């Protein structure tokens, strides 16, 4: 195979990891709360600015800023769920959807006011100079990005399947009433799930901060991609979201290589529609048994 194609494939996998992580948050929120979070892209931008502000304000590197940014994002997500979404718990789904859309606009405009529309760029030169791996080149920042994505996904898996909290989350996702009867504090679990979803966006956004210029409306371009990935992976399916993210990243990169970025979006959404027609539960979805 042409070495450049291999390079494009590698870049696609690495970028796909970021999409996967952000989509995982969306999938988790959908799994537990049964709502599509349209503030997901804006929350991701919030995560970027959190890392940017902490990094510049405290004079530390973006990776060192990440834990604090994660804590802030968890708090933000927890609050949004507890104060806003929770209070219209029994409203029709479209109202909850519009509510998250409203949250998106509010977050974006808060960023506009605080940080102005100016473009911001972090420079961490040491991590940005590409190293050579055989005939391929890759910046350490992108390898770190992927390593963190893997670790976080594995961490989420452990949390969901090996801990008491995880069991509570899964129980609430499967049968809210049953979980409540079993003594699970469902309201708190729902807020925690939203908080964890926000943490995913915070990490994904934070990891992108060293490799992008950020501005307040940046998240919009990630919103729809996350949605596509979460659906392809089967909403609520952790590893499905992960694999779909890589899949979309590779499609984007290879089509960008062969045809240019204008075609990438067309192919991503083309593939999405096609898969929905052939397999409505997504490539990795197990069907809708649990939700019916």
């Amino acid at each position, binding site marked *: 195979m042409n070495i450049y194609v291999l390079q*494009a494939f590698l870049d696609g996998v690495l970028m796909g990891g970021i999409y996967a992580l952000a989509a995982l948050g969306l999938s988790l929120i959908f799994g537990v709360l049964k709502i599509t979070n349209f503030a997901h892209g804006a929350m991701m931008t919030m995560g970027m600015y959190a890392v940017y502000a902490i990094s510049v304000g405290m004079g530390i590197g973006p990776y060192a800023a990440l834990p604090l940014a994660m804590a802030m994002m968890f708090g933000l997500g927890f609050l949004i769920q507890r104060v806003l979404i929770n209070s219209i718990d029994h409203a029709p789904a479209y109202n909850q959807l519009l509510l998250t859309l409203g949250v998106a606009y509010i977050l974006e405009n808060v960023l506009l006011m605080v940080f102005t529309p100016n473009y911001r760029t972090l420079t961490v030169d040491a991590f940005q100079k590409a190293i050579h791996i055989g005939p391929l080149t890759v*910046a350490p920042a992108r390898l770190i990005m992927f390593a963190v994505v893997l670790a976080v996904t594995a961490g989420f898996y452990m949390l969901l399947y090996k801990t008491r909290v995880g069991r509570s989350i899964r129980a609430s996702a499967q049968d809210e009433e049953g979980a409540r009867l079993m003594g699970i504090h469902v309201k708190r679990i729902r807020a925690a799930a939203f908080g964890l979803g926000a943490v995913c966006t915070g990490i994904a956004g934070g990891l*992108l901060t060293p490799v992008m*210029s950020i501005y307040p409306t940046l998240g919009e371009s990630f919103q729809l991609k996350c949605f596509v990935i979460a659906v392809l992976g089967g909403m609520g399916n952790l590893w499905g979201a992960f694999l779909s993210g890589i899949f979309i990243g590779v499609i*984007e990169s290879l089509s*960008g290589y062969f045809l*240019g*970025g*204008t075609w990438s979006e067309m192919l991503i959404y083309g593939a999405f529609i096609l898969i929905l027609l052939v397999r409505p539960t997504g490539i990795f979805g197990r069907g809708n048994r649990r939700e019916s």
Partner: protein
Amino acid sequence: MKMKKWGRLVLLAALSFILAGCGGEDSQTIRIGSVHPLTGSMAYEGQAIVNAQQIAVDRVNSEGGINGKPLELVESDSLGTSSGAANAALKLTNSGVAALTGTYTSSSAQVVSRTAEKAGIPLVVTVASSDNLLSNGYRYTFRIQPSVSVFSRNFLEYFDYFKTDGMETVALIYENSNYGTGIAEYIAEHIEEIGLEVVGMISYPATAATLSAEVTRLEAMNPDLLVPIGYYADQTLLMKEILERDIHFGRIVGCANGAFSDVKFLETYGTQVDGIYDINYRYNPNSEETQYMLEAYREAYGEEIPVHAVYGYQSIMVLADAMERCDDPEDPGQLRDALAQTELHSHVLPQGVIRFDETGENINSAGVLVEIRDGRHVVVYPEEYADDRNE
């Protein structure tokens, strides 16, 4: 600083409400409307134009205004959308402004141009580059800035000043809207006339989250000349990925590039981007008026004037010049005729006399060729507009 800005915004909003209500018939000032994006994703760019306009207004007033009557700039937020621009323009024309200026994007300029024509009020376009803006046969629209085809023509005209020995192949990478595609297609169509072979044309959406595949593709094409055309965020992303992978192209020359001629771009990359060229907006550094403008902008806003905002300053000066030649500067018909007869020798632009053709186009408009040298912008061509930064 932040509080001051908010205070000003609130005051402005209040003011525009009051003014909108009372009509400008016997006001004490000559009012000029300004339609630019002041909120939304283009707020930074729009605000800079308005800031530059205010400096021009202050200058005219400090010299006694027009026949003793001071100018007043009335801002209205276009929100960066066509519908927002239409509302803003309508509000301003209803409140009785003598002229309109605007708008930063071509789609907004189209609708404001129509409003101005209907109301019979002159519009001086600050920034909007679309070629077909002046093709409607309107009589009231005038444009100072170089259009898409002027920039593209300049690119080919200045070729001798950025070519390297043995330059044979060229690849273009451009954002896929009207602006990027328009310039890229024009250059691709005509560059073979000067002996270059186009080996690749790659378009991408300005909202792209990554351009690494496109950069890999460019690496594979290995062109002697790379021509990037796009907005600030996507072009910084492109350069970031080129620098990250340490790929070297024979030469990189932008055309009306949203990043390369921006001061922020240099603040981010410093000398890492030395050797990049761009054909873009600029001022004439040898004009006394330019020195005044640079100085005044720095003093008022604490930063260098962004190059696109220069056209905001000039729009007011062109209007002031035409008003001086009117018996009644607030008569829109008279003002239009005076604008059409403009013959402005003293101005801040890197071009000859400012004069409009019958469609309202500034016939001598031109961009300049800028090189990034030691982390600074240096004008390479035309030589008469080179800065004193040049050796």
